[in-house]
């Protein structure tokens, strides 16, 4: 029955959004900066994943390395730029972020890096099985996405609520200055934050690279725009909000296309939703201020 199939496809699609958006909302939570350059670590993650997979043939290794590298690149980005802009007016890191985004995406497209063509990442379902029920079916790749997404989200949740640094993050997200005043090591928290958020984006990149069997320099653009929309919908800085918003957006996209087709491209639709949201409920579904 197409409805159930559309539903399950939408959930998987949401899975491809969630990790990217979660990373972004984490960064925003503390930094209060729209880290547009998030797209770059997503793409770098996919690229590294591709390299490692081609070399070692193992998906899980590729995923781990990709996450690690993305995380490190994320921290580097922070240390070289935003770190110096913490007290500047908000437009300054915003513009810097745009600059980073533009610069990195262009560089990645050069021949000595990723080149202009798309490359295949044929990791398949990494050995996971196909799930077939009478209502819907999930291909191994789709199962992979769900498994990895859920697992990573669980890990993130645990880190945020059970570890010191996670609690420090939550404090800093609520009030940066206050958190510093009560002894939270802001530098460490922010750096860790960037690491984790970027690692999640890198994971998202690898997953999407496997899902669509293609890796290319501009693959991060659209997902990062979607991620912004999602974090606004879900309420900036709210992880549960991000999850719900991702699901909602994926559902709307899927069912809209399945019923009336592409009256507008999906990204335009998503942005329309965003604009309406901003007009009528700027703090998102679950955000508060």
């Amino acid at each position, binding site marked *: 029955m197409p409805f159930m199939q559309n539903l399950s496809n939408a959930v998987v699609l949401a899975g491809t959004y969630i990790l990217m958006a979660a990373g972004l909302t984490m960064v925003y939570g503390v930094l209060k900066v729209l880290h547009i350059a998030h797209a770059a670590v997503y793409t770098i993650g996919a690229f590294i994943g591709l390299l490692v997979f081609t070399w070692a043939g193992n998906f899980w290794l590729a995923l781990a390395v990709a996450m690690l590298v993305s995380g490190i690149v994320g921290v580097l980005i922070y240390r070289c730029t935003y770190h110096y802009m913490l007290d500047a007016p908000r437009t300054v890191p915003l*513009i810097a972020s745009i600059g980073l985004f533009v610069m990195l995406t262009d*560089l990645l497209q050069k021949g000595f890096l990723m080149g202009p063509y798309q490359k295949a990442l044929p990791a398949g379902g990494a050995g996971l099985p196909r799930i077939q029920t009478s209502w819907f079916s999930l291909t191994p790749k789709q199962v992979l996405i769900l498994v990895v997404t859920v697992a990573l989200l669980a890990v993130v949740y645990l880190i945020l609520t059970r570890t010191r640094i996670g609690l420090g993050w939550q404090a800093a997200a609520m009030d940066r200055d206050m958190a510093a005043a009560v002894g939270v090591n802001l530098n460490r928290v922010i750096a860790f934050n960037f690491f984790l958020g970027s690692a999640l984006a890198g994971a998202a990149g690898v997953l999407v690279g496997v899902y669509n069997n293609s890796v290319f320099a501009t693959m991060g653009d659209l997902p990062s725009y979607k991620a912004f929309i999602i974090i606004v919908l879900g309420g900036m800085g709210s992880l549960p909000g991000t999850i719900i918003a991702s699901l909602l957006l994926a559902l709307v996209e899927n069912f809209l296309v399945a019923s009336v087709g592409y009256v507008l491209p999906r990204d335009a639709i998503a*942005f329309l939703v965003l604009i309406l949201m901003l007009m009528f409920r700027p703090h998102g579904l679950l955000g508060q201020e």
Partner: protein
Amino acid sequence: MFSGYIISVAIFVGIWVTLALSLNILTGYAGQVSLGHAAFFGIGAYTSAILSLKYGLPFWVDFLGAIIVTGLIGMVLGLPSLRVRHDFLVLATMGINFVVVAVFKYVDFFGGAMGLINIPAPSILGYSFRGGFPYLALVWAFATFTWLVSWYVSKTWVGLAFHTVRIDEEAAAAVGVSVPRFKIYAFAISSALAGGAGCLYGHFIGSLFPDTFVFVESIVVLSMVIFGGVGTLRGPVLGAIILKAAPELLRFVQDYRFTIYGALLVLMMLFQPMGLIGDDSLLWRSLTHLFRREGVGEVDS
């Protein structure tokens, strides 16, 4: 002797100077950071193209029509700025850009994917010109006009109101400045001027396709404003000139255009967020220091 090539580069530079100046009114003066300026550029271009193609109206009507229509649409599209600020506004303007381009592509009235072609060259008193010195003069006349508007805005009460809104919206409201009204004014003026630039662009190239006005182009215009010095009269002009002419003159810049744009933005934000010749920049202070007149009371902005 100026070749057609140099003139055409100068024409494009003039158009982008206009765009940068118009964005500066919105972002620099009124403090509304917009990543959707290319949408207004496009709306102006398409409006004038449709007026001349489908209704056969003469150039001046198309030009004024583009300005007025884009200004009106700008007022409507500026509504989100009444609800949100800063990052959220940036996202909203980005979204507007995407939606506008999607409409150009998917609605057949605007030519859709096939674009609009055979836009007639402007003609005045029977003399038709699509390039060369006459067109150059036209473009730069409009750029100068835009500059004058910017100057006027910055010096009058409208500018003052913008300034207060930019610095502190709550304070502005507290002293009786109608914040929503002035935000909408800013959008109206800024988009109207961008629409005029769009008309000039469309009639010069002769054809329009939706992808010319994508989001990345908004980033380019914003870069010009920021690089030169946001909130000043001279900054956007210099920024536009350098960033538009450089790829033409230097091949390396052409091939690595966006890497350089991006790097420039980051570097500027790190070291000279006020722009290359912004009010507080090293370069500007050095220059003004050199030419400072003795004794005359000068207000350091």
